[in-house]
């Protein structure tokens, strides 16, 4: 089973996010960079499938040079090799452009299964993985919480609004992860040592036979950013008893804010 994992490096979710001077990107200094949490589930699931079925796990990223750190972490978890498309401009790409690059890579890398996060927690775009599947003309199943592979088929339990659905499809296919799929392992010390010797193939878009002109301008482009209005510190409800506080809150919600 040849498994490709699509991985993005993102600011840790505990980071305070500020807007950079250009007004269309975020400040990157002082940010702790991590593997996108949903991609961590993808790495873990790929390793478990490899442990059960044999094969190898390749990590594929589009990003800057720095992204190699995230790939190295995935290698330390147990993935076999990495591939980084080093494109410093990629931070400004829309989901389609990123998906085009990934699809171009995956046309050269053999795979039976692609696993990706359902979304990256920076762009929150939900677009790259399904679009990559579309460009590769393979089926995808999103938000998977459980999968089973038998011969050339994969059966997945996926989250839907208000419940769960079970779907099946032929391999090769792409699946995206949902919280609950697994508990990602930590990289062990021997894993970290071994990862230092594992290969990371670094390429640029021209190596893939792509060029900016061919790919065109991003169709969806950030033109400005702001931080949402900060919620002001509120009113602490006072009262002699819990009963009095509860009554006062309900009175306010009913009479003043009219949400009840």
């Amino acid at each position, binding site marked *: 089973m040849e498994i490709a994992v699509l991985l993005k490096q993102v*600011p840790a*979710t505990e980071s305070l*996010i500020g807007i950079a001077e250009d007004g269309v990107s*975020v400040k990157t200094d002082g940010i702790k960079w991590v593997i996108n*949490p949903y991609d961590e589930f993808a790495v873990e699931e790929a390793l478990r499938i490899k442990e059960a079925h044999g094969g190898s796990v390749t990590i594929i990223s589009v990003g800057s040079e720095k992204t190699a750190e995230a790939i190295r972490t995935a290698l330390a978890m147990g993935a076999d090799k990495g591939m980084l498309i080093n494109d410093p401009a990629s931070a400004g790409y*829309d*989901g*389609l452009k990123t*998906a085009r690059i990934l699809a171009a890579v995956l046309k050269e890398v053999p795979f039976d299964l692609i696993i990706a996060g359902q979304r990256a*927690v920076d762009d*929150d775009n*939900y*677009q790259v993985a*399904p*679009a990559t599947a*579309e460009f590769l003309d393979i*089926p*995808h199943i*999103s938000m998977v*919480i459980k999968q089973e592979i038998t011969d050339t088929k994969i*059966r997945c339990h996926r989250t*839907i*609004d*208000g419940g*769960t*659905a*079970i*779907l*099946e*499809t*032929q391999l090769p*296919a792409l699946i995206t992860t949902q*919280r609950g799929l697994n508990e990602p392992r930590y990289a062990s010390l021997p894993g970290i040592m071994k990862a230092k010797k594992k290969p990371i193939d670094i390429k640029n878009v021209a190596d893939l036979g792509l060029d900016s002109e061919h790919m065109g*301008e991003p*169709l*969806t*482009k*950030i*033109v*400005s*950013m*702001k*931080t*949402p209005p900060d*919620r002001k*510190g*509120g*009113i602490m*409800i006072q009262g002699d008893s*819990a*009963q009095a*506080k*509860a009554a006062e*809150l*309900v009175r*306010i*919600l009913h009479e003043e*804010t009219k*949400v*009840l």
Partner: protein
Amino acid sequence: MSKGVLAIAEQVEGVFRKVTYEALSEGRRIADHLGSELTALVLGTDVENISEELKPYGPDRIVVADSPALNEFLTDAYTNVIYDFIHKETPDVIILGASTQGKDVSARLSARLNAPLAMDCVAIRFEDNRLIATRYMYGGKILADVELDGTPKILAFRPNALDITNTDGAGTLQKIDVDTGATALQFIDKRLDTDKKEITEADTVVAGGRGMGGPDFAVIESLAELLDGAVGASRSAVDEGWRPSSDQVGQTGKVVSPNLYIACGISGAIQHFAGMSSSKVVVAINKDPEAPIFAKADYGIEGDLYEIVPLITEEIRKLKG
């Protein structure tokens, strides 16, 4: 002259999702702005009758793709049918809800059509001929304006972000032939928690965190039920296994924007704020007067949630008579 706005309706078991009415209402506003027609596309099995229910939301035309092959949502079959329709009709704007279905379909369509997509957007506006969509990034820590360049422009709206408006419904109903084309996905089974309200669509969310102390969410559930709302959970509560991950509110869970969000025993990590800060009114109940949630809540009550929440429920019950 504009070629029109296409709104893709979403129904589950013969019931339209609320986000469908939101998308249609916004689609009507966009069509009026562009001086064009609004078409609603309904997919499913035996959906002709229910399609009438869309009329009050302003479509000029309701197109029904009715086929046994569309009984269950499958991304590939649905995308193929919608794509064929778009290919024929060449609308300028496609609008749908960013539900789990809508996310899959819109991402696929954007790639197949090489079309710009504003995923999970909360508002749009026109500036001259430019279409600008507003969407949250970084789990709600950033609000970005994105320009969509190209045609058709695909708008996948976050549930609960748009106003529903009723318009005189004079839409005509039209059935189309359905060809699901080449498909690879097979439906096996599904389980719907029918009595459970989808948290992203609820007007009220009552959420519990570590302060719940265990998996018994009964006090929260009865308050949510009384308010016809949904139950949410913080990441700690989900990590503890007290609630399913589908209940999680936050940067790595769901983003909700209800009219009323009641946080019970949730201290208020930055990742949690990201998931609920666009709620209209936030109430926090916590034992710890120093809990960060109080700095972001409109109203706070310091106290034991197991004492306070049932009292609130009781007060509301009195109010409702």
